[in-house]
């Protein structure tokens, strides 16, 4: 049993999805989905333990050895992200019951859970597999499932948002496929480990450069790097609340994983950063993303959209850390992957509770909520402080490493810019705080009650995680540093 963990990680949600269709009854499906996700979470913890004790796990699918068969390969980086995705998914599902019942019709609810499980399958598959083509397949599974989820939003605009994402996402996936195809053409293999061995021989050919360019652009579209982020704000804003929580906290992170994996483990750091001007591009786009998205976020009146733009800005930080091209920089990126998932998970879950009661996420609707929904608003404030990077929250930890990395490389002007960027976060977070705490509630509405407990509990688990991992940084920092070190080792 224990040796099959890598595949079980993907199989559990994959099999659970069709079973949901058979169960039909929405309440049953909900708990079933939750259990499946919780099992996946347990699975990922076991995997991490196994990796930590035994080192990298290689699993041959169906007993066919690589490079003929498909290999699943779990090292620390995969295990770290598997835990992240499954934990957030489980917490989001805990809150899904009341939130979805409010936002979807009952018939749709079951389909939502099916799409959700398939999306989870896709994301976990990308993380677990060691095969380049498999990455593409799972990417498509997760993308198709997320288009479906987004389209289920209450608003008709959700359809448009989903369509936008569909077009952009498909372009991205096509680019990735072209990239993988070209790699296959040059090396005759799809196994990542194999690719890494064979690519250096053909490194200096135009085809490999082209393959790399196609692949990176495609992935950057999926991870919503500025200026390829256009699909993201609408998708997050109009999707059902639970879908937003799940996608915001995990989908872009997995795309960043793909980027890291190919840059470090397949092409090698040397190739990516020396032969191609990747560093300059990533740093420039990352910084532009931080500023452009933060400034746009300041002017948003729809709070979900506001935080969606903030996500684009935070992705900018992650890419910036990667662009520094040092161990500390990579540590900052890996930390921020995890930390940002905690922040945005907490914030979007709190917003789910808010939509449940208030029905709107327009800034105006927040008037007086500080008193009427104290726990929900407090969650948003703590999440916001974390976004800003106030000490004792996780945001501070990742910012500290990012600034340190920039100073180590003597890029202090960029360090200044990064800190200025976090001041922009102060502005958009504080707009909400001011309205919620210092504006009187609107006269015509009865006071709102606090969000239902089933939403509040997972929200606060994430809020407390924001604080806990901001104080006890042993797990995240230790693991991130280990992963960064191992990625650089492989790359050399």
């Amino acid at each position, binding site marked *: 049993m224990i040796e099959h963990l890598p595949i079980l990680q993907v199989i559990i949600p994959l099999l659970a999805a069709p079973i949901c269709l058979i169960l039909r009854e929405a309440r049953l499906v909900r708990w079933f989905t939750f259990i499946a996700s919780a099992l996946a979470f347990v699975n990922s913890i076991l995997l991490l333990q196994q990796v930590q004790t035994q080192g990298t796990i290689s699993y041959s699918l169906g007993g066919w050895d690589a490079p003929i068969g498909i290999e699943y390969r779990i090292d620390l980086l995969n295990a770290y992200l598997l835990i992240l995705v499954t934990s957030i998914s489980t917490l989001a599902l805990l809150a899904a019951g009341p939130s979805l019942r409010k936002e979807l019709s009952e018939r749709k609810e079951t389909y939502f859970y099916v799409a959700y499980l398939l999306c989870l399958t896709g994301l976990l598959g990308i993380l677990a597999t060691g095969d380049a083509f498999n990455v593409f397949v799972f990417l498509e599974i997760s993308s198709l499932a997320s288009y479906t989820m987004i389209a289920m939003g209450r608003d008709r605009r959700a359809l448009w948002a989903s369509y936008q994402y569909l077009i952009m996402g498909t372009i991205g996936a096509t680019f990735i496929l072209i990239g993988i195809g070209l790699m296959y053409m040059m090396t005759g293999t799809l196994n990542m480990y194999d690719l890494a061995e064979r690519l250096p021989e053909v490194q200096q050919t135009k085809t490999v450069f082209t393959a790399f360019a196609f692949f990176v652009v495609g992935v950057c579209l999926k991870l919503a790097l500025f200026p390829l982020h256009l699909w993201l704000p609408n998708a997050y804003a109009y999707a059902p609340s639970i879908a937003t929580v799940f996608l915001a906290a995990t989908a872009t992170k997995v795309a960043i994983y793909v980027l890291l994996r190919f840059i470090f483990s397949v092409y090698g750091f040397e190739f990516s950063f020396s032969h191609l001007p990747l560093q300059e591009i990533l740093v420039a786009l990352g910084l532009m993303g931080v500023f452009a998205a933060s400034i746009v976020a300041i002017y948003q009146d729809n709070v979900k959209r506001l935080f969606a733009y903030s996500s684009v800005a935070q992705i900018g930080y992650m890419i910036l850390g990667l662009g520094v091209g040092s161990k500390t920089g990579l540590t900052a990126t890996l930390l921020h992957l995890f930390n940002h998932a905690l922040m945005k998970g907490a914030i979007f879950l709190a917003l789910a509770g808010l939509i449940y009661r208030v029905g709107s996420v327009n800034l105006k609707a927040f008037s007086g909520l500080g008193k009427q929904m104290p726990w929900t608003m407090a969650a948003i404030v703590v999440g916001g402080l974390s976004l800003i990077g106030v000490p004792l929250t996780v945001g501070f930890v990742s910012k500290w490493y990012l600034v340190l990395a920039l100073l180590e490389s003597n890029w202090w002007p960029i360090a200044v810019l990064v800190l200025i960027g976090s001041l922009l976060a*102060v502005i958009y977070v504080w707009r909400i705080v001011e309205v919620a705490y*210092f*504006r009187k509630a609107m006269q015509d509405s009865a006071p709102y009650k606090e969000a239902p407990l089933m939403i509040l509990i997972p929200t606060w688990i994430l809020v407390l995680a924001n604080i806990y991992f901001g*104080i006890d940084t042993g797990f995240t920092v230790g693991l991130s540093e280990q992963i960064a070190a191992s990625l650089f080792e492989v790359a050399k």
Partner: protein
Amino acid sequence: MIEQSVLMQLIIILPLLAIPGIIIFGKWPNLREAVTLIAGGLLLIAVIVFYQNFDAGQAAYIHWIELLPGLDIAFKAEPLGVLFSMVAGSLWLVTSVYAIGYMRGHGEVNQTRFYACFAVAISAVMGLAFADNLFTLFIFYEVLTLSTYPLVTHAGTEKAKQGGRTYLSILLATSIGFLLLAIVGTWWQTGTLTFTQGGVFDDSTSKVATSVLLVLFIFGIGKAAIMPFHRWLPAAMVAPTPVSALLHAVAVVKAGVFTVLKVCVYIFGIDLLRDIPATQWLLYLAAASVLLASLVAMRQDNLKKRLAYSTVSQLGYITIGALLASQAGILGGALHIVAHAFGKITLFFCAGAIMVAAHKTEISDMRGLGKAMPITMIAFFIGSLSIIGLPPAAGVWSKWYLLMGTLDTHQWIVMSVLMVSSLLNIAYLLPIPLRAFFPGAGPQGADFRENAKVIRIERAQIKEAPWPSLVALSITAIMTMVLFFWPHVFYELAASLAGLSGGING
């Protein structure tokens, strides 16, 4: 007896322990205020006991957790921290007494939130005072900013929100933009952030790097209100007066200059500080800040605004004291933290008392108030003397040593700025109590007299402020004089800080 290190943690946590009580008794104001007063009383006892057992040689040390590798949250008692904790600890109780009179007299809403945030702020001040390293200090520095924001915007009006925005944006912009950068820079250069006797930099750090860091530190500590980052302080005056009094005359601004002193003495070390080329320029900047703020203060008719600019100016004195990089300067700066705290809180208490009792905020309306509110106006007079630096008030000593410091280091320009500023202090503070007692004819002649008649009719009804406020402002006024005659407690602490700093003798 309790272990010193336990007591130190207790001092930091005690205000927080009051918060559940404050919230639970939110519906019963008398019980709620009782909780605050009890906590304030216990804190006062705790800081006094702590001081009595304080021994610089075997200072209490406590390590909480290691946040990131090498970055600890740890606390250690040293003379300046003990001095600061005594000032803030003793004034919390007095301010609470005052606040009861003021908040009720003024009919303020949301008082539970008010007292709770106040307690968080005091706790943050205590944590900051005992911080063992820059990192811990930074954490509490930010907590202090965030916990005082709801106090500034307490009224919830558009003006209060505007003020709160200025307050938060300047304080966060400087602390995240400059201070954090300076801290990371220091960490990257030296690998330590612990406050060390004689500083943490060695010869391997270039003068350019230390210059840049020093500039970043001085600008980054926005709470020290060095121009051009002083705007938040006048903006914060929209807060209820007890907040202005304790936080924006004592706790928050003093946290700023306290940090400046700490950084100068324990991060740079005054020997290095003297050699950094940037020091001289920053000294001139602080001097300019002293002078300009005094000039602006003269033009303010709103009493609280005038006091705020006066605070900006007086904070410049302390920064000057730190940057002079001499023992006398450090001594004077540390003493000025104490002297200015007691003097300025008295002035603010008086301003609040006038507002509650007579509903007057503009200085030009306060002529002749002395008859109706004699105690308040006498206290105001004493507070003014202390700020100016005249006997018999505590301000004499700190200004004395600051001037000594300028003489020792041959900073003639700075010395003359200090002298001129003292004259300006006389010009903008003393007329207020003097006119209150001797209204005279007023400068506007006949026109004014007509107005005066109207005002006088109202004045018949003006009485002193509610008794708790009156008691509080009397206590601080008396303390200001007591500290003139018996400054030993604070002098010894300040002197041992100056002694620890090394450098040339005063």
